[in-house]
Every structure is written in structure tokens, then in C-alpha cells.
């Protein structure tokens, strides 16, 4: 409708006012109001419910002299009022924001119309061709046209600033969680008996799952086989996390066996009440047997999330749910399970390093596990996953297979996986919610890794093939590329990892290609911001 203003602005070298007004003009305030009307009705319910509970509490004193029942009703009414207070602030802010956005939109349209009229007074017709405009500008209209459009652009920028400020106020008001007061209620009656179904039910389900899997881990740990090594490694990681003060829930465990490295997932933080749940997907050379590293990464991300979004609760799941290539070199199970054949097994375990086959299978398992973990978390919980290296490729495959995730972060990905051409291919995750961090110094994220894999592998058609799929940091992929620098290079953890990785890839600079390196500094902060839904705090840059 106002394309002529864009056209003329570009012609006279003024910032396009129509593009600048796009967010204001398209803001869907009707939906914002409709959604918060639900919250308004909740406010009324919480208010009336609190009043009814207090009425009951007043009579209860005359019926039963025991203190505990009265105390419970007090707690319930207080929680209802506290939740209502949070919602009241949020509905007020939403109404205010909608009003400002509507006003900004109206004034923007008015400014566009006024500019069109002013330009018409100069003889400019919205339907005129570019040659007519060009001739008029050459004949002395450059300055008056530019003045009108400059004034318009400034007014649009001012109105857009008001809209952004109101969004910021709403963002601030939405920091409060109306569920928090309820989460502090007891989960059982003073004399026994369970309260509630949703929240308490989820807590019970997670607790039962954890207890069952820990019992199985304890039983397996006594064995001398690969399963024993694996179980002891997982229990060690769990014990260290708990010693560090973390609440730990074992969410998945399948014992290792000869040729299978086993599966495990451990949550740090209260999954059933968390506002945000993030899964960490490790890369090659990792395994549940050496889960301590993953648990340390999970604790670091939880700490980062607490900084990124104070007041929100974040649970982080260290997920070791797929057969990671190269793990036999590092987890010790190969040596114990195949005496005399350890080297052969380790080499065999390294062949999947040459393509994304393990990641494709792992993606299916990850998508299924995300669904299972969702059932243990609050329905409103924000779910994300952070994959590193082959784990990023695995995560990409999971996103393509409809993993129920709100955001994904691909760190140091060798590729997004074969068959995936762009972020548009993800079933459940939007390109705007697909974040990529690829350090320039990280050789694994460069095209050379594909060529080397082709040279070592045997099922590719040529050096142009992409055994790990396209680079997610490249422009055609369409993801949000995070503007982050590598941290101080760290030493490679063990010589054998360095030797194997170096032999397979022939690449230097692998110190930059570490999960821990990506979870620190600006990359770590950006990852924590995505995990907590703080998108405005994620710096992005132009893709490769």
C-alpha cells in the first residue's frame, strides 16, 4: 500500500520508512489481547478461590482445633493470591503494550498518509513510473522530496522506538512466574496422602523413574563387563553432581554391551518444575561411561542460565543416548569386552566418524527421548537442545524428525546432516529458533572436513559430496548465526583423543573444537540466553 514511499525513499537516499515500520504495522495486538483475556479470567478465579478458601478457613477454626488443616488452607489461599498478583501485573503490561502498539500503528499510517499528501502536492503520484520520478527529481524536486521522506523516516523511527519500549516493559513484567507460589506448596497432606496431580504427579513420576534406574545401575555396577564399567561411570557422574549440590534425576539408562556403548540421560535441576529444560548432546569420542564431563557441562550451562534469566528455573539434561563414534577409544569398555580385539573394535568404532550415519540414527532416539522428557516437565516448559560436533548433527536430524523442541543450538557442527538442506526442513523448529555457533578457528566446521572424510570413506560420489550435510553456518541454510569468538584454546584432554582425531581428520586447531570451549565466554552466554528464551540477548552476525 505504501510501496511508493519505499521506492521514493530509496531513490533520494533516505532510510526506507516502510521497512522500519514493518513490525509496528504487522503487530497482532488482537491476539495479544485475546491471550491475556485468558489470564484475566484466571485472575478472577484465583481471587474468588482465595476468598472461598479463607471463608472455609474461618469456619474450620470452630470445627476442628488442630492447626495443620487451617495452615494448609492458609497456604492455598496465599498461593492463589500470590499467583494472581503476578498475573495482574502481566495482564496490565500486556494491555498497555497492546495500546501502545495500536497507537503507534495508527500514527504510522497517519504519517504515511500525510507524507503521501505532501508529496502529491509536489505532483508526485504513487502510481507514477520510475522514469517520471527521476525526471522530477532532476528538475529540482530532490530536496523537497528528501525533506518530506526524511521527516517521515524520523517519525516512524520514533514511533517504532515507543513500540520497542512497550515490548521491553511487557518483557520485564513477564519475568514473574505465576506457578512459583504453587510450587512452594507441600506435595502431600500433613498426615499422608498426595496432593495434586499435575505438578505432584510429575514429581512422583520422575522420582519413581530415577529410583528404578538407580537400582538397575547399582546392580549393573557390580559386574565386571562393559555394563559394569558403564554403570560405574554413570554413578560416579551422578555422585559428583550431587556432591556439588545439584538435584539429580536419572532419566534414562540402558546398559552397555559388547559393541553397544549403552545409553543414559541425567537431569540436573528439578525437571518437573523447571521453566526451561535444555538437553546437551555430546559429540564423537564421548560416552556415558565418561559422563562426568557431560554433567560438568550441564552444571555450567545451568549456572549460565541462572545469570541469563534470573528467577527462572532451568534444568539441564546430559543426554548420552546415541552411539557416538570413537567412544571405544576412550571409555574402556572395548578393552574389557573384547580381549585381544580392542584395537579392532576401536578402529571399527571410528569409521562412523566419516559420515553422519550415527547421527541420523541418534536423531530418532533423541526425538523420542525429548517426548518422554516432556511428559515429566511442566506443560509450559520451554524446551531446547544444544548439540556439539557430531551431537549437533544428531540434533539437526532430531529436529528434522519432529523433535518437540522450541529452540536448537548447533555448536561446532561438521554439518547439518545429509538430506537436510536448510533450517526450513526442520519439522518443529523455526529457522528463527535455529542457532549456530561455528568458531572460525574450528577446523571441524570448515569444508575441509568433508573433503577429508570423502578421501577416507568409500561411499561418496566425490569431493563435492557432503558426508555430514550442509554447513549450518552458511547463508543458504538460513539459521541464526551467533556472533561469538572462541575462548583461549584449551589442551586436548587425552593424547589418544588428539591422536585419533588428528589421524582421522588430518586437521589442526582442534583445541578450538571442544564442547567446553563452546560453552564458555560469549558462546556460552549466547547459548544460555537461547536456552532461557532470552533471544534479545543473543548477538547474531551475517552467515558465512
Amino acid at each position: 500500500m505504501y510501496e511508493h514511499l519505499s521506492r521514493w525513499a530509496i531513490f533520494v537516499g533516505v532510510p526506507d520508512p516502510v521497512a522500519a515500520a514493518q513490525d509496528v504495522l504487522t503487530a497482532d495486538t488482537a491476539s495479544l489481547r485475546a491471550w491475556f483475556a485468558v489470564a484475566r479470567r484466571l485472575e478472577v478465579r484465583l481471587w474468588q478461590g482465595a476468598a472461598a478458601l479463607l471463608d472455609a478457613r474461618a469456619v474450620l477454626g470452630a470445627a476442628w482445633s488442630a492447626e495443620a488443616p487451617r495452615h494448609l488452607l492458609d497456604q492455598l489461599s496465599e498461593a492463589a493470591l500470590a499467583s494472581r498478583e503476578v498475573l495482574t501485573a502481566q495482564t496490565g503490561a500486556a494491555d498497555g503494550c497492546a495500546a501502545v502498539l495500536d497507537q503507534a500503528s495508527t500514527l504510522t499510517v497517519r504519517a504515511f498518509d500525510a507524507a503521501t499528501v505532501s508529496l502529491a502536492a509536489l505532483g508526485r503520484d504513487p502510481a507514477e513510473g520510475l522514469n517520471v520520478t527521476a525526471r522530477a527529481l532532476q528538475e529540482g524536486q530532490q530536496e523537497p522530496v528528501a525533506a518530506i521522506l526524511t521527516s517521515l523516516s524520523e517519525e516512524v523511527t520514533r514511533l517504532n522506538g515507543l513500540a520497542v519500549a512497550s515490548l521491553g516493559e511487557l518483557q520485564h513484567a513477564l519475568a514473574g512466574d505465576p506457578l512459583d507460589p504453587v510450587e512452594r506448596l507441600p506435595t502431600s497432606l500433613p498426615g499422608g496422602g498426595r496432593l495434586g496431580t499435575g505438578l505432584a504427579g510429575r514429581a512422583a513420576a520422575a522420582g519413581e523413574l530415577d529410583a528404578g534406574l538407580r537400582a538397575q545401575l547399582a546392580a549393573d555396577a557390580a559386574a565386571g563387563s562393559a555394563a559394569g564399567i558403564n554403570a560405574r561411570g554413570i554413578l560416579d557422574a551422578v555422585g559428583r553432581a550431587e556432591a556439588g549440590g545439584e538435584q539429580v534425576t536419572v532419566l534414562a539408562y540402558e546398559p552397555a554391551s559388547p559393541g553397544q556403548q549403552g545409553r543414559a540421560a541425567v537431569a540436573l535441576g528439578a525437571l518437573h518444575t523447571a521453566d526451561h529444560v535444555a538437553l546437551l548432546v555430546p559429540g564423537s569420542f564421548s560416552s556415558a561411561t565418561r559422563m562426568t564431563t557431560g554433567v560438568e557441562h550441564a552444571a555450567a550451562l545451568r549456572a549460565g542460565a541462572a545469570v541469563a534469566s534470573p528467577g527462572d528455573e532451568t534444568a539441564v539434561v546430559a543426554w548420552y543416548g546415541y552411539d557416538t563414534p570413537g567412544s571405544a577409544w576412550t571409555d574402556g569398555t572395548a578393552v574389557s569386552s573384547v580381549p585381544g580385539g580392542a584395537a579392532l573394535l576401536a578402529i571399527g568404532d571410528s569409521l562412523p566418524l566419516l559420515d553422519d550415519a550415527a547421527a541420523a540414527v541418534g536423531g530418532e532416539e533423541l526425538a523420542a527421548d525429548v517426548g518422554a522428557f516432556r511428559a515429566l516437565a511442566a506443560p509450559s516448559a520451554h524446551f531446547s537442545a544444544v548439540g556439539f560436533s557430531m551431537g549437533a548433527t544428531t540434533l539437526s536430524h532430531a529436529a528434522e524428525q519432529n523433535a518437540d523442541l522450541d529452540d536448537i543450538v548447533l555448536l561446532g557442527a561438521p554439518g547439518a546432516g545429509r538430506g537436510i538442506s536448510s533450517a526450513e526442513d526442520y519439522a518443529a523448529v523455526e529457522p528463527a529458533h535455529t542457532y549456530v555457533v561455528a568458531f572460525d578457528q574450528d577446523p571441524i566446521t570448515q569444508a575441509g572436513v568433508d573433503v577429508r572424510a570423502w578421501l577416507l570413506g568409500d561411499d561418496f560420489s566425490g569431493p563435492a559430496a557432503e558426508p555430514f550435510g550442509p554447513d549450518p553456518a552458511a547463508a543458504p541454510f538460513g539459521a541464526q548465526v551467533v556472533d561469538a569468538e572462541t575462548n583461549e584454546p584449551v589442551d586436548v584432554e587425552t593424547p589418544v583423543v588428539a591422536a585419533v582425531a588428528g589421524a582421522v581428520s588430518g586437521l589442526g586447531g582442534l583445541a578450538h573444537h571442544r564442547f567446553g570451549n563452546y560453552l564458555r565466554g560469549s558462546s556460552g552466554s549466547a547459548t544460555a540466553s537461547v536456552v532461557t528464551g532470552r533471544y534479545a540477548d543473543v548477538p547474531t552476525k551475517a552467515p558465512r
Partner: protein
Amino acid sequence: MPDLTVDTVVLRQVAAQVRDAVDVLTPNRLDATAPCPLVDASLGASALGREVVGLAERRVRQGLEAADTLSTTARAAADGLDQAAAAFDDVEATAAEPAVPSQLPAPSSLPAFGPPPAAGPAGPPRPR
């Protein structure tokens, strides 16, 4: 063992009042199942706009869960009060010298809604 003062008729009335609170607190079905009409770019394509959309959806859903959890918890409390009244009636029926209002010892078999008694606190101010 300290004594409890119990009036089971009034106790059942209280349970009914708590159930009234349950009815009020339970979100209506339409609200509880309503899809959020906001989509990712509803408030603009900026990172801030997308962040606010995500927060808005989450907070209202958390409010719904808060109300639902409160109603479920209140329902369990009402059931507990009814069970307590029934248990007190049973004890009173078998007691040698019942009195009204009852002066009953707290039997271990009763729903132990906590330790007895002493005068309770005034509680929070009633909403106005």
C-alpha cells in the same frame, strides 16, 4: 496426648466450602485447552518480539497450571476433611462417654492432618 476439639457437622460444612473453592479455581475447559493465538512473529520479527511471544505463552500457561494445581490440591484437602469427619464420628460412636462438642484424644488411626492444636493464627487478610 493432647485433646482435639471437633465438630464433625461443621467440619463437613467446611469441606463443602473448600469444594466451592475448587469449583471456582478450576480453569474452564475452553481456557485450559485454548491454543495460544500468538505466533512467533506476532509482535514483530525482532528477537525482542519473539522473546515476548514465548514469554507470554509460557506465563499464561503457567497461570493455568497454577490454578489447576490449586484446585486439585484444594479438592484433596476437602476429601481429607471429610475423611477426618468420618473417622472422628467412628471414634465417637465407640467412645464410652462422648460429648458434644467432642473432647477426643487424637487417635493414631485418624487422618493426622498434623499435630494438634493450640489456637491457630489469624491467617492472611481476606481479599477485598
